[in-house]
């Protein structure tokens, strides 16, 4: 008896994880703008308020500092809050509670206070220009004390969310807006979302495609783009190994280094800003792990260091895509 293959939206995969954990543990609750009555601007939390009540699925005012801190207080009080910041771009109004409370209290308290809180937010570019298109996972990964999760496959979207909710450590979970409304079967790998509860562990990168010539490391929606690009490049005689980091903190240097040890060439693709972020860190980790002499070539392909322009023509020139990844690989040959 094989389970029939379900085709669900990415948004639904997340919603199922949240529902499953809320069902299993009544300390789990959800706070955020539009998460309740409307079920979220991407429909992620649809139906949850009817099912779990207004107290556990709370529509908030546009008071991110207050409700993010409320999450911290609830976590300290023994709850497992999931706080939604609609778009990651808005975190500038409440970063304080993220960077100085949520992420630091576990350590500052000498381990006597845990903060089992999930900050859910959406990154990625869907045409809404500079203030609504950022990824910023590099920003969170630079600030110590939080797990930074950026899922790519439908399977992981659900499993990593479940893991985030079960985690006793604070977690930032960054969804990609480019994916949320898509169907799971549009993703090249791990497109099946089991109905039951399961988790995906943090800190284990996944080799989503085997290859021998080049190691392409990426995260979030770019994993799909990279896989498609790799397939299209195959006829040109380039065999690309694609690695999905899944979490930036912890960062699975081991898996990446092992691959680069084999291929000798590293390309990091990142939808987040180019400089002082993920791409530099991955390069540095690999160089440290293997020694520079073990590498033949290193390149980065990321969002340029400019505010994202509104015009589609410019946006397409800026955001890493299947086509631009192909170009980036070709440049390395």
């Amino acid at each position, binding site marked *: 008896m094989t389970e029939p293959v379900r085709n669900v939206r990415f948004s639904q995969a997340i919603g199922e994880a949240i529902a499953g954990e809320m069902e299993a543990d009544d300390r789990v609750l959800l706070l955020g*703008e*539009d998460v309740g*009555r*409307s*079920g979220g*601007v991407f429909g992620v939390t649809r139906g949850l308020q009817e099912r779990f009540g207004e107290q556990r699925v709370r*529509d*908030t*005012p*546009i*008071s991110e*500092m*207050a409700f993010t801190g409320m999450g911290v207080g609830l976590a300290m009080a023994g709850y497992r809050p999931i706080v939604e910041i609609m778009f990651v*771009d*808005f975190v*500038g*109004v409440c970063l304080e509670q993220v960077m100085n409370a949520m992420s630091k209290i576990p350590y500052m308290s000498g381990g006597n206070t845990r903060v089992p809180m999930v900050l859910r937010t959406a990154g990625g570019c*869907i*045409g*809404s*220009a*500079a*203030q*609504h298109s950022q990824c910023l996972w590099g920003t969170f990964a630079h600030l110590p004390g939080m797990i930074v999760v950026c899922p790519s496959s439908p399977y992981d979207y659900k499993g990593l969310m479940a893991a985030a909710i079960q985690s006793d450590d604070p977690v930032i979970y960054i969804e990609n807006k480019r994916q949320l409304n898509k169907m799971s079967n549009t993703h090249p790998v791990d497109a099946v979302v089991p109905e039951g509860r399961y988790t995906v562990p943090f800190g284990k990168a996944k080799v989503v495609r085997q290859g021998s010539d080049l190691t392409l490391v990426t995260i979030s929606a770019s994993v799909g783009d990279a896989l498609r690009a790799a397939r299209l490049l195959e006829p040109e005689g380039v065999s690309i190994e694609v690695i999905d980091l899944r979490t930036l903190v912890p960062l699975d240097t081991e898996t990446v280094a092992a691959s680069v040890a084999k291929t000798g060439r590293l390309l990091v693709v990142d939808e987040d800003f180019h400089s002082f972020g993920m791409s530099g860190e991955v390069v540095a980790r690999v160089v440290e792990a293997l020694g520079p002499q073990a590498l033949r070539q290193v390149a980065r392909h990321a969002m*340029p260091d*400019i*505010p994202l*322009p*509104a*015009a*589609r*023509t*410019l*946006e*397409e*020139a*800026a955001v890493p895509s299947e086509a631009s990844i192909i170009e980036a690989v070709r440049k390395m040959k």
Partner: protein
Amino acid sequence: MTANKHALIDHFRMMLDMRHFEEACLEGVPTREIHGELHTGIGQEAVAAGLAPWLRREDALVSTHRNHLHALAKGVDREKLLAEIFERENGLCGGRGGHMHPFDPATRFSATGIVGSSIPVALGFAYGFKMEGVSDVAVAVIGDGATNTGAFHECLNMAAAWNLPLLVIVENNSYAISVRFSDVSATPTIAERAAAYRAWGRCVDGTDVEEVWKACGEAFDHVRGGGGPALLEASCFRFQGHYEGDHDTYRSRAERKRIRAEHDPLTLTEQRLLDAGAATQEELKRMREASRSETAALLATVRAAPMPDASGLHRYSFVGV
């Protein structure tokens, strides 16, 4: 009962132009000429139109994600504005800003897509005006949702403490996306919060352009006269979804229908003009037609303009390095 028929006709014309401008924007959505979220002010025209006559060129206005009507009220060039919204190279900001981020130094108009963030920027203009000893006013237009942000409190406190010429106009359409103001707010009105800053505050029916015009007059008198900040709450209704594509499931069909039937500031004004004998059906119709065809011509012009070329991606970054 109309104090000034000519004024009311002017208001009406402006509201018509505003409505048509927004409708022109709607046309850019299915074609993906506007390829991100689009927020229109359809239904809220009376607020911007009642405000417009009081604005001087030297005044500053900082608006929100729902900013087109405020830009028009401030006198931003319609073609450049529409071109920016349509992501064109000849737009106000070369297509870099887009519909949420129009900047026009010539009219001191700007906006931001982050809720609450317009107020601090307006406060900066207000501080400058006070330093210069001029009677210019800095206006921040915000939605009801923005009154629950911390920035609202910080700015009103500072403006009042230092007696700055800041006018905060709240378009209270009862919703922040799907969240009802009444479900997440401590007070039934926003204007009553002015007392916490010993500031001027009042409510007005934001669907009645003449009332808005009068209330804005009072507010500007207060602020220009050196009385310190003012908080004007205009209740109104958003006809469209929060953005184009919003399923708007949080409002019932009936509610949405009722809003359009009973609270359309254009219809209400037409009726008043007719009642006052200030215009005939025929004249009104001609005004509508004129405004519509002008906007259609504008849209055609904008559509003929080129998109930014990819080679210009890095232009407008740092100037000094």
